[in-house]
């Protein structure tokens, strides 16, 4: 077997990870700046080699001399890129001996169509010679990436900071070390936990720990990374919990099958006895709530520990959030039937709010000090996340919705509680993209 692997899945992953490493290293240097400055809408591509090749092919048919030249755009390239290519090709044709005249003065007419197929740009030159002959020449070149998305500017801003991109599914990302910007992260995938460290100006793979699982994962696989105060890491997966030693490298992973309880309240947010202060007022304690996750599906069964007031179960749900208040904590569950259910331990109610399946709590210095982040409802082409508070009984949006490049597949509060991780699958590229979400006040 002479030729190297033809399995595109692996090179694609490698390619995407390389892109992720590059992207992440750039972001690491400009972590804060990146969220304030919109991404460039397009990257400058170098079309010159293809322009030169097509020009050469055209002139091989026409020979040097006068010709009329027209362009047709039949591809998804933007007008700006099309103009760049047209100008470049015109220049190349002139360099190889063609000069342009009006069609009624031309012995030869050339029509260049900038077309495309699924995988390539196809530039076609249709040449009509005065003697009645015609010829078709063409070049093709691989289609490249597309433009990024822009950020909204709002008074109270929910920000998303890109963390990581890869072709393989991302279930969660944990930031293990940071100093202004993340310098060490863990990425939970379907079958592994990978640790990356930013050093020598770029992200480098530190270690990949394989997760062995005997049974197939559910289709809509979910997983969560939770960092303990002792800096060990736990990966919660359907029917399995893996514990990763740390923080030193190499780490070890130990996975155990079983219906372990997943944390609903991150360790950094739970307070079982003391009352702590927020930006606005003293609030009640928040217990370290955990819940059973179904090993073969994508939701929590509804069984809770400890109980919430008189409730030890709630209808099965996808995700949960909470809002500590003066006398109690309001719990919110994104139920599998699409409803958002609220309980304070005494009453349970269904809200009319049209949220998506993923919600999470963040503790901030803004407003009430606690906000619920929620994905948008429906069958989104472009998902979004928005922050809400509960000044009275109903949630009130306190930020603009921030858009994601595709459906949000995970939204988890980070261990320290003041930020959240969102994972979205890019509709255009198919890659998974991880973001850190943070709320900043008074803007």
């Amino acid at each position, binding site marked *: *077997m*002479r*030729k*190297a*692997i*033809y*399995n*595109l*899945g692996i090179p*694609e992953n490698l390619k995407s990870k390389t892109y992720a490493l590059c992207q992440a290293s750039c972001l690491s240097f400009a972590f804060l700046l990146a969220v304030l400055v919109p991404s460039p809408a397009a990257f400058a591509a170098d079309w010159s080699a293809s322009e030169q090749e097509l020009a050469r092919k055209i002139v091989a048919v026409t020979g040097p001399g006068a010709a009329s030249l027209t362009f047709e755009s*039949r591809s998804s390239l933007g007008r700006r890129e099309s103009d760049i290519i047209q100008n470049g090709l015109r220049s190349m044709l002139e360099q190889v001996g063609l000069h342009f005249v009006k069609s009624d003065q031309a012995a030869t007419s050339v029509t260049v*169509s900038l*077309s*495309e*197929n*699924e*995988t390539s*740009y*196809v530039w*076609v030159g249709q040449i009509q010679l005065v003697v009645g002959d015609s010829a*078709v020449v*063409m*070049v*093709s070149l691989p289609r490249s990436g597309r433009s990024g998305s822009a950020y909204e500017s709002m008074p109270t801003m929910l920000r998303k900071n890109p963390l990581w991109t890869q072709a393989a599914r991302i279930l969660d990302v944990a930031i293990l070390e940071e100093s202004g910007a993340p310098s060490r992260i863990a990425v939970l995938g379907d079958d592994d936990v990978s640790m990356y460290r930013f050093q020598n100006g770029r992200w480098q793979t530190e270690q990949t720990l394989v997760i062995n699982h005997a*049974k*197939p*994962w*559910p*289709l*809509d696989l979910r997983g969560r990374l939770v960092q303990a105060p002792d800096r060990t890491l736990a990966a919660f997966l359907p029917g399995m919990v893996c514990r990763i030693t740390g923080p030193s490298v190499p780490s070890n992973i130990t996975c155990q099958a079983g219906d372990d309880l997943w944390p609903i309240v991150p360790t950094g947010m739970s307070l079982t006895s003391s009352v702590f202060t927020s930006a606005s007022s003293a609030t009640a304690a928040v217990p370290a709530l955990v819940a059973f996750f179904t090993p*073969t*599906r*994508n939701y929590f069964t509804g069984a809770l520990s400890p109980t919430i007031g008189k409730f030890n179960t709630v209808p099965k749900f*996808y995700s949960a959030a909470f809002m500590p208040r003066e006398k109690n904590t309001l719990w919110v569950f*994104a139920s*599998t*039937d*699409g*409803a958002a259910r*609220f309980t*304070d331990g*005494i*009453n349970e*109610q*269904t*809200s*009319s709010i*049209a*949220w*998506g*399946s*993923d919600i999470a709590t963040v503790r901030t210095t803004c407003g009430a000090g606690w906000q619920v982040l929620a*994905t*948008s*409802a*429906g069958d989104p082409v472009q*998902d979004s996340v928005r922050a809400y508070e509960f000044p009275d*009984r*109903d949630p009130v949006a306190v930020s603009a919705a921030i858009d994601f490049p595709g459906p*949000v597949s995970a939204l988890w509060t980070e261990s320290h509680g003041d930020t959240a991780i969102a994972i979205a699958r890019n509709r255009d590229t198919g890659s998974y993209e991880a973001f850190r979400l943070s709320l900043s006040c008074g803007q």
Partner: protein
Amino acid sequence: MKLFVCHCLAVSSLTVSMLAHAETRPQYGGTLRLMMHTAPTALDPGDSRIPDSFGRRSLISLIFDTLVEMDDAGRTRPGLAEAWQAAKGSQRWQFRLRHGVKFHDGTPLTSEIVAASLRFANPRWSIRADADSVTVDTDESQPQLPAEIALPRNAIAKRDGEGKLSGTGPFRIVEWQPGKRLTLVAEEDCWRGRPFLDGIDVEMGRSFRDQSTALELGRVDVIEVAPEQAHHFSPAKGRLENSEPVELIVLVFARESASPDEKLLRNALGLSVERGSIQSVLLQGTGQATGSLLPTWISGYGFVFSSQADLQKARQLRDQVQTGRLWTIGYDASDSLARLLVERIALNAKDAGLSLVPTAAGLTDLRLVRIPLACADPWIALDNIAGQTDLPRAQSKGFSAEELYAAEKADLAKDRVIPLFHLPVFYAATGNLRNWTLRNNGNLELTNAWLGAGK
């Protein structure tokens, strides 16, 4: 707290109306009801005697898996094979199998079963089963073999002595009435993960009108929609999706052109067909008039081949031939669109001085044929068209657009076929069905579909 309760009750009616669209994460459960015009009489993916259709391909993909899969960007992805590599100038390909996969009858996926399945569908290939891989040897270089392996006809099926089929796909068969009904249930231990739907009930061979009515009455969740009727579909009924233009409508002559005169007359016929007006009237604006075999979205250059009618030139060509010629033109009697198209083409031909007699029975001089394109790989698609129209198989298997163009141009120069239209495939579904997709290639993708609130 009372106020809280009252408020929530007050908005409960609003809640009900909004809940139907409030979930975004997939829900498990429910049986999908699918109605189709297509009525395949066998589900064996490798059975070449069964006419190819988009509906049959979609059903096969629910039950069976291929070693390699193609995504909508034309890239190959691992399926039952985790990796593959080429040797001997792409004449030999080795596919390493995924571990832990089982057929619906509980049998583990083995290289022997995979090799037997591929041999059944490809008698010309030499296939060897190794420990955890299969090796395919071909007579000539096949750089695009992984894409060919991804075709539905190469899906891996385990065939027992009694002709019973077993697959590894997300659904298994519980009832099969050929051409009428298919009942599928979710495979709990599917290697991809259990599908969200509990099952799928498929009714086949139903008219487009019946399907539309059933969708309107809420008796089905998904239907096929005839391309020429797609513009009538009301958004109130549900969501209509269309593929890229993946079906070629083409006139195919039964024999090669026997004389220069015959060649002139065939060219005259090609120039007489007013594809533009037929597309806007009979096809109600759907699809694309074409002069090429491959659509532009697959080749990138389809527009180079003119589809414009030129009646004057057609008459000139006709007048160069001294003797008259009467052609019989055939079509599928069960296809009302085909009948309308053939009648209109006969009228166009008459304007050019040609005589075409439409008939739905018997051997004819030429036929109107509808060809589902094999896939988005241009070489495989062109090869497949050649196979179905008795054109010679393309010799060059190069990668460049120019080589492909030369191969297609050579096919058309034989005057054996007259391309007419490329049509998309249409499916419609109720709003409750989520995450279903109609792939570029016309394949209805239900593996990740789920039924939302209200079901």
